[in-house]
């Protein structure tokens, strides 16, 4: 109708929204913030936690704006049962240049801001724990990085420690306050290594190396789950790792190296990628006389299939 009426609605909406947005954001930050997954057990996990909190504190006012407006509109502007009166139509109802431009500008600024922040959170904690492929560009500042190879196979993860003679074990132990590089690869189909509390996720592809970095800064246990559907026992493909003190870690690594020495001699030499036999132990999928494409480090059936 007239100008004051519209400003009146608008002002009410802004006030309700502002109050709700501030209250909800503050409650979220203090009550929920410290508990936001994946927690703060490592640098990548804390980075992700902070990122999530920031994103949520931006998203919450945006959602509240829409919800407050719609709730207000649905209550205040509901039509009467008889439905005889008509609202104002005409060209004014069809668009308003200022509002449209304002909306586009605001959403663009928010989106670009979120993008810049997300990139910073990605780059600074050495890739935020995500798999960076075989040529990672965001690496930890320190050069004392412990490499652990994660081998995914149907349906278990095993871990090789090149720094300790290349022994292979089912247990994942990492030292605290040490940058760790997970070199994730697979011996058959695509798996995904997800160390939940460490905030690390990297897909395991056959014959390729996917590197993810993190530095644990709390002791304790963490869950490792496969997060890419890989067949029958995908749901059972999980285990638990531990973050140990440096002394405990060295003790564990050296004693395991000793215990597994007999088997480690039989393992193929350590390599960042392996070429598993696509035929499998019984052979038959590809003709036997077809050589694998790459001669790099054959892992497994070296004798021709029967």
């Amino acid at each position, binding site marked *: 109708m007239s100008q004051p009426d519209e400003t009146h609605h608008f002002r009410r909406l802004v006030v309700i929204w502002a109050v709700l947005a501030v209250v909800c954001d503050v409650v979220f930050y203090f009550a929920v913030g410290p508990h936001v997954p994946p927690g703060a057990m490592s640098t990548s996990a804390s980075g992700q936690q902070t990122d999530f909190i920031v994103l949520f504190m931006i998203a919450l006012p945006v959602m509240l704006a829409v919800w407050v407006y719609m709730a207000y509109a649905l209550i205040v502007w509901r039509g009467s049962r008889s439905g005889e009166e008509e609202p104002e139509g005409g060209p004014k109802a069809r668009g308003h240049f200022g509002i449209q431009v304002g909306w586009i500008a605001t959403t663009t600024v928010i989106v670009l801001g979120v993008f810049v922040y997300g990139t910073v959170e990605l780059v600074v904690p050495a890739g935020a724990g995500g798999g960076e492929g075989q040529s990672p560009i965001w690496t930890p500042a320190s050069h004392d990085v412990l490499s652990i190879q994660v*081998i995914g196979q149907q349906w278990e993860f095993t871990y090789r420690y090149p720094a300790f003679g290349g022994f292979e074990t089912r247990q994942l132990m990492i030292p605290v306050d040490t940058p760790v590089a997970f070199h994730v690869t697979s011996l058959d*189909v695509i798996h995904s290594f997800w160390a939940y509390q460490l905030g690390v996720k990297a897909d395991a592809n056959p014959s390729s190396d996917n590197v993810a970095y993190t530095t644990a800064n709390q002791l304790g246990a963490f869950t490792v789950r496969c997060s890419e559907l890989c067949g029958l026992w995908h749901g059972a493909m999980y285990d638990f790792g531990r973050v140990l003190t440096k002394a405990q870690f060295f003790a564990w690594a050296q004693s395991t190296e000793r215990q597994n020495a007999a088997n480690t001699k*039989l393992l193929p030499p350590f390599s960042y990628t392996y070429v598993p036999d696509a*035929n499998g132990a019984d052979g*038959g999928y590809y003709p036997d006389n077809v050589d694998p494409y790459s001669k790099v480090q054959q892992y497994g059936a070296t*004798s021709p299939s029967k």
Partner: protein
Amino acid sequence: MRRGGRLAILGVLLGVAVGLVVFTVMAFLRSSPPTVDFTTGHMAGAPVDLRVQTVGSIGFGPHPTWVSYMTETPGGQWVHTTLWDLPAHTRINVTLDQYDSGSPLRNQQLGQIIGTAGTVATYNGKPESVINSNDTNGVGHTFTIPTLGISVPLVGISANAKNPCSVAPCSTSYDHNVIKFSFVTPGPGQYPWQCFVPCGLAYLYGNGGPMQTVGYMDGFLKVVA
């Protein structure tokens, strides 16, 4: 058509639909190999003897060319299943007759015996703690329970064996390896187990077919209180 007629047709269609759904659930979704029960009549504290065999091809059923495990019931019958009911906190003595030939392991890490009593298994009477799968006979299958940290590689028979068994259930007169080991069941729960040798013949990476079918190379330990 009158309303009553339409209702009748609707009722018939509804009945057909419900019938189809029930049939699908019962016939496809809920079908499963039988579970061998080792808990009835079990005295608390006594060990359970579990006898299984692995064969190169099962010879019967919908997939006669597939490799498979078979289980002997307490009554002495061989059943084509990999599902067992076992009592909790009990020592299980496993005797495994391995009738299949072997190959090098894709991951030699599985050549280590872990999680068993004494961390050993006996192969034809000789206790071992590491099996070199690049040896002449290689490893045919493994018996692995990942969540319990138990794994035993099962050595294959020679590729030039004179008397291999080709149709299950195999009797001990055929060429085979006898592998024995023991482990203790934990508290109640369902624990998946599998073979880790990619022995699915003619599947990519060897892990299709029997390697992904419960009743052949995968199963459950159902531990009951």
